[in-house]
């Protein structure tokens, strides 16, 4: 059964490689963030597999949980950052403030 987990982990890792291509090529920054989010979610699964292979799953499952939390917070922070620095919205915000004044 450990052999099966090794092969499944290798398959997941091999499928991460084309997504790295999307990070390198991706036309906009948001595309890159999406690809990083996918890879982070898959790393959670990979950590659980590593725990199953080394028979220490009770330790690696905590790592996987922490990684999932950090990945979620990281992608939310990136999304909020790109929401805020976008120039069109700032212009419309300043226009709204001027109209109020």
């Amino acid at each position, binding site marked *: *059964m450990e052999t*099966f987990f090794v092969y*499944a982990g290798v*398959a*997941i890792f091999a*499928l*991460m490689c*084309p*997504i790295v*291509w*999307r990070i390198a090529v991706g*036309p*906009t920054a*948001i*595309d890159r*963030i*999406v*690809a990083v*989010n*996918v890879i982070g*979610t*898959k790393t*959670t*699964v990979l950590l*659980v*597999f590593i725990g*199953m292979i080394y028979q220490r*799953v*009770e330790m690696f*499952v*905590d790592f*996987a*949980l922490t990684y*999932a*939390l950090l990945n*979620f917070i990281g*992608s*939310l922070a*990136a*999304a*909020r950052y*790109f*929401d805020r620095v*976008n120039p*069109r*919205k700032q212009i419309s915000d300043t226009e709204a403030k001027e109209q109020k004044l």
Partner: protein
Amino acid sequence: MILNVICIVLVCSGILFFVGGAVGVIRFPDFYTRMHAAGKGDTMSVFLILIGVAIYQLGDFNLANLLVAGKIFFITVFIMWASPTSTHALIKAGFEEGQKVWTRKDEKGDSEK
């Protein structure tokens, strides 16, 4: 033995969903369709793979294995809650940034990129 078979079937179908997600992220033409493939395929594949591993973990039943299976199940529930949320936040950020929606007219221009 039957738990092993269930685990193998669930993990293989999860990897199949991940193949779909990866192909979608590579091949789709614009940001929204890529996000669609990434959000759905990713969530479903993580759900299937981790449920399979949790079922395998319950094979020899004792308290420590039950705790580990509960933690894996909690990761599954958390990812099923967090992945659509981050997908929504990223789509909103991209929409506010002014990402263009792909139409059939752009096909010739996009094929060179």
